[in-house]
């Protein structure tokens, strides 16, 4: 292979990573500049440029990917300042979901979340500026919205046939989505109990408009209880009569457990920080 061919292969590698409208122009410029640099190098070495000389020179010039990046403004999908958070969430997710196909969904979800957050920060930097926030202050509206969500959740999971009939004008929900009797009678009520506890706590917080140490501890306790109940759901027989629905529901519960665990770690760290400050 002669030096011109090596240079052309290199330029092809660079320009295929550039916008179409710039390719021809940059290729022409690179070809002429690299030819001059190589000629000068050959002159200094006292021989005509050959393949080895061209390869050496182009290695110093930089990997085609790097050179292409230098030609245009670079951007990152995950902001370097978010890398640690991303890795922690990805590793915890891998530990829990590593044996199932859901791990790909989890990693995709994380990538999308951090990517969108990074894009929003770049697009509206003025909205991302740091503002001091009282860590004990609770959003009354947010707490009440959560209570409403809990009530909707209890209704939807407790009487799915009734909710579906109300929303669809009297249609009947597919029997595929029917609970097993054992789950419906003995286990599901425990989830409602946990949700009800959480609803009462949120009402108290909404009433006071702030978090206290006690309410924070109770909140963490309720989350831990939720994990115990959800783990029990998965380990003590079927939830749904249809096996495939049962399998999917259990993997969904595994994701929920993961999210609650991350939430507990976050809340515990926050509590520790607040105690340290006081």
């Amino acid at each position, binding site marked *: 292979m002669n030096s011109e061919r090596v240079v052309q292969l290199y330029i092809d590698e660079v320009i295929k990573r550039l916008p179409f409208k710039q390719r021809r122009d940059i290729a022409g410029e690179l070809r002429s500049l690299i030819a001059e640099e190589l000629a000068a190098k050959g002159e200094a070495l006292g021989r005509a440029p050959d393949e080895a000389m061209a390869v050496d020179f182009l290695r110093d*010039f930089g990997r085609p990917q790097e050179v292409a990046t230098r030609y245009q403004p670079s951007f990152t999908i995950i902001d370097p300042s978010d890398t640690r958070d991303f890795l922690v969430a990805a590793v915890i997710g891998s530990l829990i979901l590593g044996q199932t196909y859901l791990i790909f969904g989890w990693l995709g979800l994380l990538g999308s979340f951090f990517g969108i957050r990074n894009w929003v920060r770049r697009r509206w930097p003025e909205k991302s500026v740091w503002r001091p926030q009282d860590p004990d202050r609770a959003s009354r509206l947010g707490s009440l919205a959560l209570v409403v969500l809990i009530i909707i959740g209890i209704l939807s999971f407790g009487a799915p046939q009734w909710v579906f009939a109300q929303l669809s004008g009297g249609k009947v929900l597919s029997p595929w989505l029917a609970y097993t009797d054992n789950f419906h009678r003995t286990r599901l009520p425990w989830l409602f109990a946990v949700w009800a506890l959480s609803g009462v706590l949120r009402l108290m917080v909404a009433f006071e408009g702030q978090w206290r140490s006690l309410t924070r501890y109770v909140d963490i306790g309720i989350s831990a209880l939720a994990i115990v109940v959800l783990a029990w759901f998965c380990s003590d027989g079927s939830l749904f009569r249809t096996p495939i629905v049962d399998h999917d529901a259990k993997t969904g519960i595994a994701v929920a457990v993961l999210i609650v665990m991350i939430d507990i770690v976050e809340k515990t760290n926050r509590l520790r920080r607040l105690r340290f400050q006081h």
Partner: protein
Amino acid sequence: MVNQKSIGASEAELRRGVLVLAVLSQLRSWQYGYSLRQALVDSGMPIEEGTLYPLLRRLESQGLLASEWRIEAGPPRRYYRLNAQGKHSYRELGTSWRGLVSIMDRILDAGV
């Protein structure tokens, strides 16, 4: 060894910071990539080819440089020169640089 490496990295960072100003300073007259690099080398500011050539395009896309293709004795070459906006930016950056040098001189003299 590690210390030497970190000094080298810091020095490279310092040089990167002044690269744009050094390049603009050489473009008050028409230059093409290779001749510009030689001019910078001769002035004691060597710069890698893979860094300089993309930088010229970026400065052009930022509206600081004018460029044109010329076919003379050798192969076709793309020439660059400061445009009006580029001259203005060059003056501004030059003033900032001199101010910075004077501040750093004071700081360094006080630290000796």
